[in-house]
């Protein structure tokens, strides 16, 4: 039983890594209708910026806040001067542009900071606590807490604020939004900027554990996409729950289903998605999309 709880707790911790990135992807999707493959790469760039500041003896929290601001600007600039051209066209082209952006950002990080593993300081102390007989690291708890806070903020943003409503309107129907007098361009920039800032937090949370390299977010990206689709493209709560579910079920399947084992445990999220989507095509918490024919 002790092992079981430990696996669940570890799964939540790993799942939080995916959730951090997934939240940023959901934000961009809600605000601009695009799936941004480069979200992870941008998060890595933000983490490098924060690391540079830390190495200049800036306190970690301040460094992260500054990198969030820098990422906001960067996200807005990328939207205005790169993505704008592709947002109204073929969605496949837009996705490939984000893929190109990912390659470029990764390459730039490698160029400036090399491929060596950089140690990123953790916001939380490295001690552990015991919960229900399982050993949890304080940094995992801290990460989970921060994720929950962000999730609540995002949920509130989209459902409760005028800005959130405006962002969603612009993504769903830009023409009508424009006719209603909304500053469409500016809202798109804000959407990307917020997502980039969120990515900066994700990067800072995840880097201490994964060790900062240009390709750090490549593996979590696939899991984050899985969590986004499983949880529903429209729901921050959904993707966090989905990410945790993926992390936990992966661990449990690896240990308790020997024919899956540790090498094929990566199949678990996809089997999960398949089963859930057969029953609920909009994902666990998503809203059904209605398209006028």
């Amino acid at each position, binding site marked *: 039983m002790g092992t079981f709880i430990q696996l669940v707790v570890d799964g939540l911790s790993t799942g939080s890594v995916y959730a951090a990135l997934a939240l940023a992807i959901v934000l961009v999707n809600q605000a601009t209708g695009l799936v941004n493959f480069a979200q992870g790469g941008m998060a890595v760039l933000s983490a490098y910026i924060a690391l540079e500041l830390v190495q200049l003896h800036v306190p970690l929290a301040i460094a992260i806040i500054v990198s969030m601001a820098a990422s906001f600007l960067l996200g807005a600039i990328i939207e205005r001067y790169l993505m704008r*051209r592709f947002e109204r066209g073929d969605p*496949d082209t837009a996705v490939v542009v984000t893929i190109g952006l990912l390659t470029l950002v990764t390459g730039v990080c490698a160029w400036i900071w090399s491929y060596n593993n950089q140690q990123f300081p953790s916001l939380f102390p490295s001690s552990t606590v015991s919960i229900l007989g399982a050993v949890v690291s304080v940094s995992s708890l801290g990460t989970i807490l921060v994720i929950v806070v962000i999730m609540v903020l995002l949920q509130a943003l989209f459902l409760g604020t005028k800005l959130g409503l405006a962002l969603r309107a612009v993504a769903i129907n830009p023409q009508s939004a424009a006719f209603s007098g909304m500053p469409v361009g500016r809202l798109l920039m804000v959407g990307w900027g917020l997502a980039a800032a969120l990515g900066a937090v994700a990067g800072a949370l995840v880097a201490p554990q994964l060790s900062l390299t240009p390709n750090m977010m490549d593996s979590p990206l696939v899991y984050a996409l899985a969590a986004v689709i499983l949880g529903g493209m429209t729901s921050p709560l959904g993707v966090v729950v989905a990410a945790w579910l993926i992390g936990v079920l992966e661990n449990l399947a690896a240990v308790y289903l020997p024919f899956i084992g540790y090498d094929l445990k990566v199949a678990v999220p996809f089997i999960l998605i398949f089963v859930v989507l057969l029953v609920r095509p909009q994902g666990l918490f998503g809203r059904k999309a209605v398209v006028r024919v």
Partner: protein
Amino acid sequence: MSTAPARLFERPWMRWTIAVVIVALAVVLPLVFPAFTNQTLARIGVFAVAVLGLNVVMGYAGQVSLGQIFFVGLGAYVTAYGVTQNWNIALVFVLSVLIPGVVGLVVALAAARLGGLAIAMVTIALPIVGVPLAKRLSEFTGGSQGLSAIFAKAPTWSGLYDDQWQLYLVLLIGGITFLLTRNLVHGKYGRAFAIVKGNQAVAGSMGVSPYRFKVLAFTVASLIGGVSGFLYMVVVQYTSPETMSFGSSITLLASMVIGGAASILGSVLGGAYYVLVPQLTNAINPNLTAVLQGVILLAVLFILPGGLVSLPRTIRRLWTRTRRGGNPSPPTQAASRQADLAEGSPTERQGQA
């Protein structure tokens, strides 16, 4: 307003002569080119076929598939296994096409009921689960060390060098695949795909079953992927789990879009992109390949959002615009510039930034 050049290319006799010229060049040029050029062209052929398969399901039928590379890898593994077991090469070829096709059919039957993004997710699962699976089934796949299969040596009666023989094989098999696919997408199936891509509800109401045609498109794509896998083994003669890596999968997707989605010629250009860009970036600076590849991809799509295949179209439009003469009134120029920026979208966005 004159479109005489366009009409010229549509005339049947012109098309026949172009075909003859292409075939003649395809026969003669490999005998003249140095070995590395032939090998590069053969690799372009392999990935052109792979991109063609992706185009069938994604470009023409509009279903996002990130799993095409899985079928290429599967075809390559079947070929490698068959060759190392000394099976008849014709049998190996048939199996390397059919087995991926059957797998694709099964996957499609299950996945086609789901929505677009769900299909994307299921297809992502293919290469991601395929890699550890290939490592696990090591009696068939050679595990993480991969399988070497040398079988495309030029027979002595032909008097050709190996690279020439391999290029001819690729041109022949690839060419036939392209022809068959072209007939498929230019016929009634192609029209059905286009309707399913455009609007599934409308398709259903017109009696075109989206489910049937999605399954068909996906199966055709996986069959073509199997052909590409066979050709991969002809040219590379080695396969390993890295053949179907997720990175290769998204590069294949990028190649399709850069070549030109829903276009036969675009598939060839996509294959060329897949093979030539890494070589180009290596030639510029091997330490900066990632940066350069990102820059090239973004630059190409920025200038030609419709892909490389849209270059003549874009040039023609610029040509006719300059020929129409500089209409000096700023609003018209601004409007046409905006029309360019909004590439094919039906309405324009209100205002600028």
